Structures are given as C-alpha cells and as structure tokens.
C-alpha cells in the first residue's frame, strides 16, 4: 500500500515531534538540579529528603505559606509531623502536579491548601498564559529547569543526583525583617465576591479529588496578608468551600485572626509575615489541627528519629531568630526603655 504525499508529510511531522519530545525529556532530566535543595524556591524541595510516610499534615501554598506557617512548631508542641510545600508564585496548577509527586512518597492525613494561589498570577500574564505556562512547566521539566544549564559541569553532568537533603524548618523560611504598616481594616465589607478563575477552580477541584483518592482530609486556609487579600476574595473561597464541603479558615477574619499586629508582624508592609506573625499563625493552626483531627504524637517514636533531631536544631535556632526579629521590631528596645 503506498501512502499519499500528505500522509507521508503528516507521518514525517509526527516522527519529528516524537524525536523532539524524546530529546526534550532527556535534556530535562539532565537539567534537573543536583540536589533537592534547589528543586523549588524557598525550601519546598526538602520534602523529598523526608522518610517515607512520615508527614501527617501537608501545607501547600505560595510564598505567604512559606513565610507564614512553621510546621516544626507543631512537632515541638504536639508531636504533629507537618511540611510546608510552598514557594513564590506557586499556582494551583503547580500544586496539583506537585501533590501527585508528593503522594508517591508521603500519605498525609490532612492537606492544608492555602488559598492565595487561587487569585495570584504574574501581572505580565493573562490567566490563560499563566495556566498553560505552569502546566507545560510541570509536564516538561526542561521548561521548569532550563536555566540550570548554568550550573552544569562536565563533572556533575552524569553523576547521580542527590535528593536526600532535609530542611529542619520543614519548608518554613523564618524571616526576621520588619517593615510594618498601620493596622487598617483591609477586610471591610464591599458586599462583593471575587469568583475564582475557571481553570484555577477546576484545578482546585482536581486537588480535592486527588486528596479524596488518597483519603486525605482537606482544610482551606488563608494566611494573613494585608496586601493581596480582601473580603471579596474571602467570599469567593468561602463559596468554593461550601460548594465542595470543605472547612475553611481565614486568619484575616476578625473571629479567627490570631492577633496579627501589622506594625510589627510583617516583613514587607503587609504582603508576607515575618517570624512574629508566623509564630501566631502556626500556633493558631496547630491548635485547630490538634482539636479537629486525629493526629498522633510522634515525638520519641521509632522511625521519627530524624524529626526529633531536627526539632532540637529548630529549638536551638529559635532564640536567635526571635531576638533578631524583636530587635528589628523595636520590641526589645521598648522593653529596655
């Protein structure tokens, strides 16, 4: 049977695309970072260094979560093992695919899905561009790690990648800078509700489904953010939570606010929390988790030795961080004066 010209041409194009795809996948493998420390912004990649099936609470979110939720605080207080998988500009599309990967190694009982990524996107991109770009990044690692060519050397090109690095702060990044703002009401009632963009909502529902498939309970949480959050967004998420039957905790609301003082608890004028704010949010969220979920105390248990040693490192680090942030906030000075 002889092929027509257009059939031959179509086959040629398909063959070319297959060859290209193989090359793209191979190049993507070689461009992945040598260590899981650099897999993602902040210290999210450290989750791959944790022992299998040790994490009971998984926090997913963007930079607000990475700077606002300190899971080691829970281990110290209740023995709850948690990890904040969060990084700047992480979208719901990214989160869905990363959660798929995390489930290959962990089986969290509770997934805390932070809500800021439902509305954030880079201003230079449309929602569609942002969605397509992020999804393509997830499907083709080459696009996500393309800039790593700068760190490739003949020595490390073919060596085994080491993904055993662990973060003692379990994904949280302590910030000691203080750049306050007045305690103005940013959650005033405009009566409006900002709907979640269609594709974002679709992916949030996929995340819920993925969690259900793995028997994880989902809790929606909004980390306090005086810049970038408002009542209209709260209403949009609340409607989503109600529609999908998941609990929702917005720490920006008066009844759940853990006592954030925007003059001292933010590192950058209300966009992100510093350690003072993160401690309050982590305390409040830890109390909620302890109260509402059946989470075991793993302190001293066999199989959690690394957690105990990391908790000690965390405790050793805290006084210095606390002192630095208090100095920056003028709290120590005030006390002295």
């Amino acid at each position, binding site marked *: 049977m002889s092929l027509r010209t257009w059939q031959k041409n179509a086959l040629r194009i398909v063959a070319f695309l297959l060859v290209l795809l193989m090359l793209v996948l191979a190049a993507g493998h070689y461009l992945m970072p040598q260590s899981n420390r650099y897999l993602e912004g902040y210290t999210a990649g450290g989750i791959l260094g944790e022992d299998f099936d040790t994490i009971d609470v998984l926090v997913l979110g963007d930079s607000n979560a990475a700077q606002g939720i300190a899971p080691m605080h829970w281990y110290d207080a209740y023995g709850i093992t948690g990890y904040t998988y969060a990084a700047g500009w992480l979208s719901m599309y990214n989160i869905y695919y990363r959660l798929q990967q995390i489930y290959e190694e962990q089986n969290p009982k509770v997934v805390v899905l932070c809500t800021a990524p439902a509305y954030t996107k880079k201003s230079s991109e449309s929602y569609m561009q942002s969605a*397509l770009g992020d999804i393509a990044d997830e499907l083709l690692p080459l696009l996500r790690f*393309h800039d790593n*060519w700068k760190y490739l050397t003949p020595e490390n090109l073919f060596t085994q990648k080491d993904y055993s690095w662990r973060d003692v702060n379990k994904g949280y990044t302590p910030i000691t800078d203080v750049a306050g703002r007045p305690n103005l009401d940013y959650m005033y009632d405009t009566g409006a509700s900002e709907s979640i963009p269609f594709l974002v909502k679709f992916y949030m529902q996929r995340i819920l489904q993925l969690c259900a498939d793995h028997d994880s309970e989902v809790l929606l949480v909004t980390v306090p953010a005086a810049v970038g959050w408002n009542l209209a967004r709260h209403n949009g998420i609340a409607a989503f939570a109600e529609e999908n039957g998941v609990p929702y905790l917005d720490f920006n609301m008066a009844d759940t606010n853990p006592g954030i003082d925007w003059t001292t608890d933010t590192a950058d004028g209300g966009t992100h929390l510093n350690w003072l704010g993160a401690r309050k949010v982590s305390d409040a969220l830890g109390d909620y988790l302890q109260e509402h979920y059946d989470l075991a105390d793993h302190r001293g248990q066999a199989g959690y030795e690394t957690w105990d040693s990391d908790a000690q490192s965390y405790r050793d680090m805290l006084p210095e961080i606390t002192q630095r942030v208090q100095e920056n906030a003028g709290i120590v000075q005030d006390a002295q004066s």
Partner: protein
Amino acid sequence: MAYNSFPYLCIFLPLCWAAWALLPQRYRPAALLGGSLLFYWLMAGGYTVWLLLAAALTWALGLALGRLQDLQAATVPGLEKTARKAAKQQFTALQKGMVAVGVAGLLGLLVGLKYLPFLARFLNALLTRLPLGWQVTVPSFVQPVGLSFFTLMAMSYLFDVRRGTTRPAAHYWQVLLYLSFWPHVVEGPFDRWAQVSPTLLDPPKPDYRAFTFGVQRILWGMMKKLIIADRANMYVKAVFDDWTKYSGGAVVVATLLYTLQLYAEFSGCMDMVLGAAQCFGVPLAENFRQPFFARSVSDFWRRWHITLGAWLREYLFQPVIVSKPMMQFGKWCRTRFGAALGRSLPVWAGLLLTWLAIGIWHGAGWLYVVYGLYYFLLQWLGEVTEPALLRLCPALPQWRTRRWYRLWQMARTFVLVNLGMLIFRSNGARAALEMLASLRRPYAGSLLIKLDVQDLWVLGIGALVLLGVDLLHERGISIRESLARKPLPLRWAVYCGGMLAVMIFGAYGDNYDPAAFIYAQF
C-alpha cells in the same frame, strides 16, 4: 497573545492552520479572517471597533474611487476636447476629495487615539506663556494595538487605488482581512494590497515546503527574541530605567545591548510574522536586509524597517517634493540662493518632514522628534560636507571602492546608529542628553548588571551567530534553501538543536523578566 507566547504558537497558530488547510479552497479566506478577528479581539478587546471602522471607511472610499474611475473611463473618452478636459478635472477633484476624506478620517483616528494627549500638552505649554489663563483638556483614549500599522496600510490602499495601480476590493471583508491579517497587524510590515491580496483572497493549496520553511523561520525568530532580545533586556532595562546611577562603560554596554536587543527582537518578530504568513502561503514584505552592513545612515534606513521607509518615501517624501507649493518654494529658492542651493532646499525640506514623520511615528513625545531630527542632521551633514570632503581628499572616490574603507563606513554607521539607539531608548530628551554626557565619566561598579557571566556569553555568541547569518544573507546565500538540500538526519539535528536551544537558553521563567515586543507599542 504575543507572537512568541505559548498559546499563540501551540494553540492559535496550529488551529488556524488546520482550519485553513482542511476547509475547501473557497472558504480559506474565511478561516484567515476569522483567525485574524479572533486574534485582534484577544489583543484589543472592545477596541476592535476602531479597526472595523477604519476598514469600513477604507473599503467604502476605495469602492467609490473605483466606481468614479470606471465612470471616467466610460464617459470621458467620448467627449469633446474641452468638455473632456473639464470632466477630467472634475473627476480628479472628486477623487482627490475622497482620498482627502479617507486620509482625514484615518489620520484623525491615529492622531485622536495616539497623539492627542501629546498635542494637548504641547498646546498647554504654549498657552501658559500667554496671559490668558487658558488650558485645553482632551479625553485620553487607549491606543488600540497595531493602530499605526493598520491606518498607514489603509492609507496606502487608498493612494494606490487613486493612482490606479490597484483595483479596489469589492467586499468589506476583503479590506478587513487585508488590514487585520494577524501576522502583520501588530508590528507590520506595511504590506501593500496589491502584493498580499492575491494570496489572501485566493489562497494557494497547503504546501509542505512552504509550511516547513515557515516553521523554520518562526523558530529562527524565536531564537532571536527569547535567547538574545529578552536576555539583553534585563541589562538594558536596569541601566536605562535607572540611568542616573550609571555612566561610562555601563552606558556603552547598555547601548550596545539595546541595539542588539532591538535588532534581535524586531527582526525576530518579523521572522515569526513572515514565517507564520508563509505557512498560509502569503508572501509578506521583508522588513530587514542586514542593516549593520549599511555604509551610511540613509543606507541603514533602507535596510532597517524597510517598509516604513518605503511607505514614507512613496507616500510622503515624493508627493511633497513634487507638490505645487514645494515647486514654488524651489523656484523662489533658485532666484534667491542660486541654482544649486535652490535645487537642494526643497529636497532637504522634504527630508526634514520625512525624518520628523519617522520620529513621530514611533511615539508621541519630544524624544521622538529629537530622534527624527538626529537622523535628518546626519543625512544633511553628509550631503553638505560631501563637496568639501572631495576637495580635501581627492582620493576619496577611489577609497570608497576599497574594502578597508567600506569597513570603516560600516563601523562609523554602527557607532552613529548606536548613538541614535541611546536617544531612542532613553527616558526623555533630557535623560538622553545626560546619558550622552555620562559617557565621559568612568563607571566604577561591576559591568555585570542583572546578568551573570554565562548570560553575557550567550549574548556574545548570539550576536556572532546573528552576524554570521547576516553575512551569508549579504552574500546572497539562502540558509534555508541550502539546509533543505542536506540529508534528513542533518536537517532534523539542526531543527531539534534550534528548538532545544530556545527551550534551554531562552530568557524566560522566574529568573527573567519577559519583555513585550517593543514595536507593538508603536
């Protein structure tokens, strides 16, 4: 939806091509029109109405001009000599009136949407000097994307119909497709109706060779834009946006990188545009011809943004210098200043007008006036000093045939163009002057601004590759044709290498600041 964006390249373009190729031949223009309107609406939203209005005005006047010409051809030859002359005059006046209405409408659209705030600021600055206390307030409109391109193309259509060099379109959708055709609506080139309408309205069959050549050209454009232009933008933006912090070497590097950025970006965009059109069998006009091999600034402008220069030469400069007032001005000059100067002055006046138009076309601001004047002064100085140079150096005509002198001319032109680029990119005329002055002050800081050493290596190699490709083109070698004759494994290796290069070395993602196409704002 930029030409280098994922949605455009991976969704819009393949879907349009599939619709165009699968539809029966007579419906293919509809696929192009549908794609064009969708593309424009995605870019401009409600402002698409301006494009629809411009197309309606152009089509109606073009059609009326054609009818008048038909009527003239049918009636005038049968008349007596005196009546024929009178009828001809009436027909000419009517046609001129129609073109004037069209130009006024299209120019009004352009001025109203693009230049009104600038004109109001200028007028108010003048009024503040008067003791009247008057100030003018004007509404500020959002400039729809591609305004400067589709209005000028619409005018060229009317001029060509008026001149009888082309027949008018019978249907509104035909003119709308010509003006809105997505590959050229955002950044040009300024295509002529006569050149593109045959393939737009009567598309050829899908052709594998044209398709692959088009895709190759899009890939080459992507390489220029993503690997070179967007990377250079990091350095350029840092220095030009915060120019008071930098001087000497940093300003020189930023200027050189801006020249590289603009060339890679604009010519890269044209590659993507011409490549996309080639996939659909539509030959658009070339807009670049190795500009950095130019030996003078006027030669440079015949190689850079060719279709803008050609448009202004054909529809502004030439009509102006042969216009009645200019002829009278020439006569007056000859009686006052002698034959030589009398001949030159009207040409210089026409040149001044053209350069000012080139400057102003780029944007509403004094900076662009200065930019146009800069090139006028260079060209004018070149012409007026030529006799003195020949007297000083009688061997000059001989030298001009020598290779070393041609290289010197290219280097000289390159430096002058770079100075022009500094003016063009700076944040206003005052900033331009201060940046020029800052060149004398050494810069003590590191020259690695926003970019690391690896990025500079990529830019250096990228510039060399651009130069090499331009050199081959200058020698008349068609790289795509040569490549097409090579064995399949070698061809695929080159194409896969190019695509991987874009994906790996492209300046996109979190570490870079994606830059919008510069010429899209004009």
